[in-house]
């Protein structure tokens, strides 16, 4: 046998695909798959809502709180007064299945959230921003509107779906997912959900005070500030354009014949 020296064959063991092409294909394909999965899960959340009655939800989440909530002292004056105000407003929704609870999140960013089981979270930043009880009442009424329309569960469901998605993608432990304030803050409601919640909030405020004067004054002040770069950006990013909202609310007040003048109640603290 004759030994014939040959160069090893080049490249049979190496795919010809350029690594960037491989990366692009994988990223695009997997993104597509995950988007489809996420959308189907979101659709499932919608279906699940029909099977979870508000009573069940209230029972499940009776004493529940997000893990990362930085609460204020239980004897805080603002907490007490906000709870009283919320109770008064909730009285205008007599068949509400929830016992509404207020918690104050010790954050400078003005925001309010509706969480399962009738938990309303307002931030310290929001309480510092409101100038009258009517303003605060509208914010609380707006959150009541989210409960009424069950937006809070819908959004939470979506949020959990997205958190799971990110946990899988980044390789984190899926079991470690809890509902956190930080997550909820980043979840936005749709324009339609906000408008319906605004309408409910205005109706509640109107029933309580007999007018909707100053209800959206807070938003007007924010708009006047012309999206000042501090803090509020977070709020704007999760809520529809403030100018549009104010216009919508004016329109709603006009439509329902709610008075836009009347005595403004000062804050209780």
């Amino acid at each position, binding site marked *: 046998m004759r030994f014939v020296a*040959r160069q090893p064959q080049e490249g049979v*063991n*190496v*795919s010809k695909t350029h*690594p960037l092409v*491989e990366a692009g294909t994988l*990223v695009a394909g997997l993104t597509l798959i995950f988007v489809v999965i996420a959308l189907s899960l979101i659709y499932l959340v919608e279906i699940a809502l029909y099977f979870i009655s508000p009573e069940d939800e209230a029972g499940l989440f009776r004493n529940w709180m997000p893990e990362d909530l930085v609460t204020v002292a239980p004897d805080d004056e603002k907490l007490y007064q906000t709870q009283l105000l919320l109770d008064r407003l909730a009285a205008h929704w007599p068949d509400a299945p929830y016992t509404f609870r207020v918690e104050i999140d010790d954050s400078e960013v003005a925001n309010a959230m509706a969480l399962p089981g009738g938990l309303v979270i307002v931030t310290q930043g929001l309480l510092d921003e409101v100038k009258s009880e009517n303003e605060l009442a509208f914010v609380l009424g707006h959150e009541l509107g989210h409960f009424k329309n069950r937006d809070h569960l819908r959004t939470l469901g979506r949020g959990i779906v997205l958190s799971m998605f990110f946990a899988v993608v980044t390789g984190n432990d899926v079991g470690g997912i809890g509902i956190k304030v930080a997550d909820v803050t980043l979840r936005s409601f749709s324009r339609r959900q906000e408008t319906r919640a605004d309408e409910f909030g205005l109706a509640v405020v109107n029933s309580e005070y007999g007018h909707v004067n100053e209800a959206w004054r807070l938003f007007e002040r924010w708009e006047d500030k012309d999206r000042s770069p*501090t803090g509020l950006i977070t709020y704007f990013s999760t809520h529809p354009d403030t100018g549009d909202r104010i216009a919508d609310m004016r329109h709603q007040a006009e439509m329902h014949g709610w008075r836009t003048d009347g005595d403004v109640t000062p804050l209780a603290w």
Partner: protein
Amino acid sequence: MDTNIEQLNLFVNIGLPILILMIAYFIGSHMEKKHFRSIREREAKLQGFPVVSFDTMPDEWRVSSSHMVTGSIVISLDYFKRVIAGLRGLIGGRVKTYEPLLDRARREAVLRMAEAARKQGYDAVFNVRLETSRIANARRDGKGVAGVEMLAFGTAVKFASRFANSG
């Protein structure tokens, strides 16, 4: 303040990994090209030096001495390859980014072995075998892989009279 922190967060969580990914890709592919170039050059130089996998010597070989020779290389993944392979791991299939890496490792190991044999004055290597083993990552309780060792070994032989009896 809050927005600055958020932007910083965003950068650390998304921007930084992408930046590292890009740097890893450019450095990694540059080094890979360089390595393949060197492999090809050295393979060309070793042309005519028999490296074969027969487990018994051809009858014609008249050998005066023999010795075991080894060539070994430990090769590691770059971050880019690791991430792409991770994505591939979700759906399965050919992990294409690993293929050039292992090709390099095999050829480099065989080259080192053959070069060692030639340097020591041997004329051929037969019964060449390849072995791989994982080098565990010390940081993650040995769960991760720090690299792969590719070991080539064989029996180097010195011909009594160089190719005297070939053919």
